[in-house]
């Protein structure tokens, strides 16, 4: 009897983990395996799926629209992820200081992050819309309305606008993580640096940034993942247009899935998974070796 209760006691943690394991299995492992299975079929969402091997993956690399979407997605991430980190860090450094209205300033920067990205996209659409948007009216009153025209009508400028809107919305989130990182650095470190005669930038370079490494890591990884899987802001502002010039891979997956190419869309989702995994793993490895150096 004692042995049994000891056994239960020793294995209790496994039982406690069981619900989480079941949930993980049902909502992550099963869909993942099912998705991999479907990616090897020609399922159109209606008829029974038929096994076609790796044809979907081959088709992806032959599809101009898909390759264009990869380019859009990567360009968006290349613009968005670094800007989010740079501005997030700058805001954090600025708002970590003591001044009147600090809390209000932090709230203002963070506020867009709690608004739905879809709503944010629509708000920006009404600001940026050529001919009748708020910005157009302002520029018109200054007699420079030509500056505000057609930003959303060309693929390249529309993509740049999308990056800026995304950065504006999520910079508060990045800032909060950097602020938490800054506040966890012991004050003694800054005092010691000051005693040693280091100025602001030297302290930033040799004390603040190295000790912010965990926050940088979190922000870089989450921003890469978020930027490469971008969906809502594009749907709200341009719907991937004009044409498909700002379509991201996530939107492509949705459209293919709904458009009777369900098996193919699952294959593209797997490809997107690897597109996200590659920079994340590379960065984590680099960060790890850097942490060892520090």
């Amino acid at each position, binding site marked *: 009897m004692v042995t049994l209760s000891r056994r239960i006691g020793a294995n209790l943690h496994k039982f406690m983990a069981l619900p989480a394991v079941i949930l993980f299995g049902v909502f992550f492992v099963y869909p993942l395996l099912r998705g991999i299975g479907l990616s090897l079929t*020609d399922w*159109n*969402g*209606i*008829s029974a799926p*038929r096994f076609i091997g790796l044809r979907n993956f081959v088709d992806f690399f032959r599809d101009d629209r898909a390759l264009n979407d990869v380019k859009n997605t990567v360009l968006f991430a290349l613009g968005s992820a670094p800007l989010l980190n740079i501005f997030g860090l700058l805001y954090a450094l600025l708002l970590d200081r003591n001044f009147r209205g600090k809390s209000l300033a932090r709230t203002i920067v963070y506020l867009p992050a709690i608004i739905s990205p879809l709503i944010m996209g629509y708000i920006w659409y009404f600001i940026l*819309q*050529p*001919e*009748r948007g708020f910005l157009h009216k302002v520029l018109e009153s200054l007699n420079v309305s030509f500056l505000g*025209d*057609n930003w*959303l*009508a*060309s*693929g390249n400028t529309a993509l740049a606008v999308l990056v800026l809107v995304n950065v504006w919305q999520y910079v508060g989130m990045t800032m909060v993580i950097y602020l938490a990182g800054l506040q966890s650095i012991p004050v003694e470190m800054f005092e010691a640096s000051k005693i040693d005669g280091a100025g602001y930038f030297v302290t930033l370079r040799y004390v603040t940034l190295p000790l912010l490494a965990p926050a940088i890591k979190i922000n870089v990884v989450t921003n890469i993942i978020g930027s490469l899987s971008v969906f809502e802001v594009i749907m709200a502002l341009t*719907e*991937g*247009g*004009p*044409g*498909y*010039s700002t379509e991201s891979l996530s939107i492509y997956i949705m*459209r293919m899935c*709904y*458009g*009777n*190419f*369900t098996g193919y869309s699952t294959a593209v989702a797997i490809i997107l998974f690897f597109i996200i995994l590659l920079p994340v793993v590379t960065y984590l490895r680099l960060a790890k070796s850097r942490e060892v150096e520090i």
Partner: protein
Amino acid sequence: MFKRILSLGTVLVLLLGVSVAQGAEKKVAIKFFTGKVETVEWMNDLIKKFHAENPGIVVEQEYQKDASNVIKVKFASGDIPDITTVWDQGFADQGKYLDLSKETRWWSRVQPSIRELCTDLRSGKQFRIATNMTMAGIFYNKKIFSELGLKEATTWEEFKNNLKKIKQKRPDVVPMFVGGKDSWMLGHLIEFMAHGAVKQKYGTMGSRKAFLNNDAEKLAFDASGGPMETFAKRILELKEEGLFNNDFLTATYDNQLEAFATGKAAVISQGMWALSGILEKNKAIKDNIGFAPYPPIMDGTKPVILSAEDSAYLIPAESKHKEEAKKFLDFLFRPENLKAYSEFLKAPSAFTDVNADWGPLKDEVAKALKKGVNIGFTTEAPPGFSGDDAGRMVQELYTGRYKTPAEFAKAYKAAWDRAWNAARR
């Protein structure tokens, strides 16, 4: 003793509660899935009246903007609606809709031409029943036309010259306003102007068969001088002449209605569904709205006008509450309800026993229907190539993605074929 009585009382109350709840659960809930945003509120009011007459049935209306796509997820996940407004040829082929052909109490009241349009070509059955008819064509501002001495165009040249004259004489007015951000409207241009050429050449049934079977010879999508190449040429012509609004690619449906209602646009391509929106923005324009067929884009063809079924209802074959669904449709199809619906929607009824005063364009439409070849929607288009997809290709055309109209035509055929082949798996 008191505790025992209290316990017994509690148990009895709980049992009573459970039995009452079970009684309440006996109500049958039917799911009505719609993609028609303009009718949601009207339908909610009708549902309230239905509930009052049928306390045992609860109708739950669900609207989705992207209904034609969302329904695919619903079918795939087993969340089957009991009534829907979404038709998809692929689902019909898979037997996903209930055959309504034998519902004579309904069909005996429906105009034969509408019944024909509701007939699935592959099976010869009617899976959907339309309550209304709709028309689409060219809406124009009669006051501007009369000021400039313009007449409704019957050829492409006349149409272009009208727009050019508006541009020249009325620089404050956009000759033709297109809300190109909402790609379905650009898809409609293809649907009515380019596909319209095929539809008038082969007639309603002939063209429906050609679309259904992807008859490359008849559709001639990639043919030199064919409907797609000519359509692309026509759009680029108007663009080069500066006859569209500057924000062609970023203006919305709402912007288009606003521009037309306020007299800032002289011509728009629209259907009757837009009428209530236009009048909502400016009631005073009521007497200035002219309605004409689309000009022919190809030489030797005639103007075309959409005259098709509208507000079609279907019952999925896997619905668990087919009888209750039919009961709701019986209620909806009552003449007084359909009259109110037509007058609200500003679209004529497809039911012969409904005499609705459906809108200020009633006489204009009657005249226009006689002037142009009447065509229907391309309901046999492959499900993976929606009007939105076609519209996005027009956006690409406008941005210069295709070097020549012929390249656009080739790309259109490739996209169509790909979707058609996927649907035939």
